């Protein structure tokens, strides 16, 4: 059976670090809780004045291509998957899409397919899902999935607008900027393979989180019903993972690591403890919230890159990716990570 794999990944994190302490101390309305303790986010990366979604994406792509066997003109498809589409300050681009400008900048073949995806924090894994489908069907051979996520503008708005100790914009204080890219092609052996990936949208809860321009300030804001999202996920994740275990005949011991979507360390650990009965325990939970915060659509790749660079995730390891996003999207992917172009 044909399967796809991650051939190479590239992650770019802006140099500037901003601590949670410095953000909270600048706020007029203080949260009712210790944000750093609750979420585990101590610091996050912050774009410079010259960085935007296009530059973050390009920096990640350059690293990805540098470690890949492919050149830009070998790539059949480029999919841009960020939530934000800012170029040149807070200028959002609807047409042409970012994938079109990235394709142009990279000098890709004219007949290479490009399109953008919007699917909240599941953006990159939606791109991975689509590339996996196109590789399996034989329609395409090589694809580049990228996100240049310039998400801290929502933090800037939250800092101006939070006026309630349980404000819907508190989650906006946990995010960080980043770029991530992955090149996918056909798997040639079981040591490097996307074993399975399934994503579902629980649309009943699609209105629990909105990202949109603010109506109080020139900028973009995110309004999150964090408690409702947490309760919805906690109630469903154990049976969801239990059904995966049955469908794919896997359990926690088949994986060396789990990379959950990076929301809050406490929430992640609570959720995984509850899944112990239906899925079993996974030896190692990968969290990099302390350094990078929630990088939204890129989170799994930022963590994967970080953990491989530290030698914690090694080539040949099985990693369970748990996907969670507004929509509400729940998903799981089993990935046997290969050498990924030299990261080990």
């Amino acid at each position, binding site marked *: 059976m044909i399967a796809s794999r991650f051939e190479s990944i590239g992650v770019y994190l802006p140099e500037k670090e901003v601590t949670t302490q410095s953000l909270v101390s600048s706020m007029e309305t203080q949260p009712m809780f210790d944000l750093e303790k609750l979420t585990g986010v101590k610091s996050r990366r912050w774009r410079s004045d010259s960085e935007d979604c296009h530059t973050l994406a390009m920096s990640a792509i350059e690293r990805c291509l540098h470690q890949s066997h492919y050149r830009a003109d070998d790539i059949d498809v480029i999919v841009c998957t960020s939530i934000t589409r800012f170029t040149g300050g807070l200028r959002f681009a609807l047409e042409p899409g970012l994938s079109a400008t990235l394709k142009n900048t990279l000098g890709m073949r004219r007949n290479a397919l490009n399109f953008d995806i*919007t699917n909240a924090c599941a953006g990159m894994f939606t791109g991975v899902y689509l590339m996996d489908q196109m590789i399996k069907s034989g329609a395409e051979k090589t694809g580049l999935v990228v996100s240049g996520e310039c998400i801290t503008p929502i933090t800037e708005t939250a800092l101006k607008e939070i006026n309630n100790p349980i404000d819907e914009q508190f989650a906006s204080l946990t995010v960080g900027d980043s770029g991530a890219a992955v090149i996918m092609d056909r798997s040639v052996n079981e040591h490097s393979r996307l074993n399975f990936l399934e994503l579902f949208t629980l649309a009943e809860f699609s209105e629990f989180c909105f990202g949109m321009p603010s109506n109080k300030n020139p900028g973009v804001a995110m309004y999150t019903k964090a408690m409702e999202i947490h309760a919805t996920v906690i109630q469903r994740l154990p049976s969801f993972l239990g059904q995966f275990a049955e469908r794919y005949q896997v359990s926690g011991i088949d994986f060396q690591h789990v990379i959950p979507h990076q929301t809050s360390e406490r929430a992640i650990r609570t959720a995984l403890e509850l899944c112990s009965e239906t899925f079993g325990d996974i030896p190692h939970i990968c969290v990099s919230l302390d350094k990078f915060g929630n990088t939204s659509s890129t989170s799994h790749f930022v963590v994967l890159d970080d953990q491989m660079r530290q030698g914690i995730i090694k080539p040949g390891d099985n990693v369970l990716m748990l996907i969670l996003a507004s929509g509400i999207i729940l998903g799981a992917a089993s990935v046997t990570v290969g050498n990924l172009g030299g990261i080990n």
Partner: protein
Amino acid sequence: MGSIIRKTAVVENKNFSAIENTATAGIKCIEASGIDPSRIGVLIYAGLYRDDNIMEPSVASLVQKKIQIGLDISASNLAGMTFSFDVINGANSVMSAISVADSILQNDHKQFVLIVAGDAHPSKSDHKEFPFEAVGAAMLLDWDTDSLRGFHAVSYLSDHTNAESSFSATGKLEEFGMEGRSHVRFESDPHLSESYLHLNAENINQYLQRQRPKAIDFILSSEPVRGFSQQLVTMIDFQHPADGGVALSPQSIDLHGHFGGDIHTAAPIAAFDVLIPELKDRKKTTLLFSTVGSGNASACALYCV
């Protein structure tokens, strides 16, 4: 074998919400198809303009909620769940969605893919600067294993590197102040039609050389300006060797005549929907779907009815 169009629906009731229009079209399409809605495994929103300029969640998830499919996960069965997302690529959004839907259906024949498209101004009003007609369109795709019916591979071609996009839609939030949810800035090159025609014809002619169809009965084309598809037909430069040198000359669909202007992302679906009465009395019909838009880029694919 290929993806086939099981049903289409178009609504043009002058509602100026992209979410409302596409959801209404989706519901109409599912009802007319008679299928069990729980078999829609994937829902793709391929419209571009977003009510209130929302960036999150996907518009597809909000449409899915209105259509009422796959609303929540069952404690005992993952079957009947739906995955939804937005595919964005200017006027080529639907053709891009068809590209990915074709692979999804080929890999899993048991499900359906629903594509919805159509645009409305983010202010959800009849905004005078909005260059498109607000409609909602839906297309239900299925997989046909028994015949040669369905879509052929989609051909995609962008303009030369460094060529400027002939059309852009952007929003500078600093300038929009507190009105960011209801503004978009459009910029259009005066030579847009000419640029689009040349790129579109280049893509089609290269594609036909590869595919070598004996006949094309209809071309279902984007119409960024009135008469665009008629002009495009005159630029098709392919004749099948067995046909004695007669160039293919498919009939075009006057979408401006039907909808009063450019319906942008909805064009391929609406053109097919308009053609349905004509197709009823025909035995074998070959269509050429063709779109062109910002980027600039063009997509096309043959479809055998």
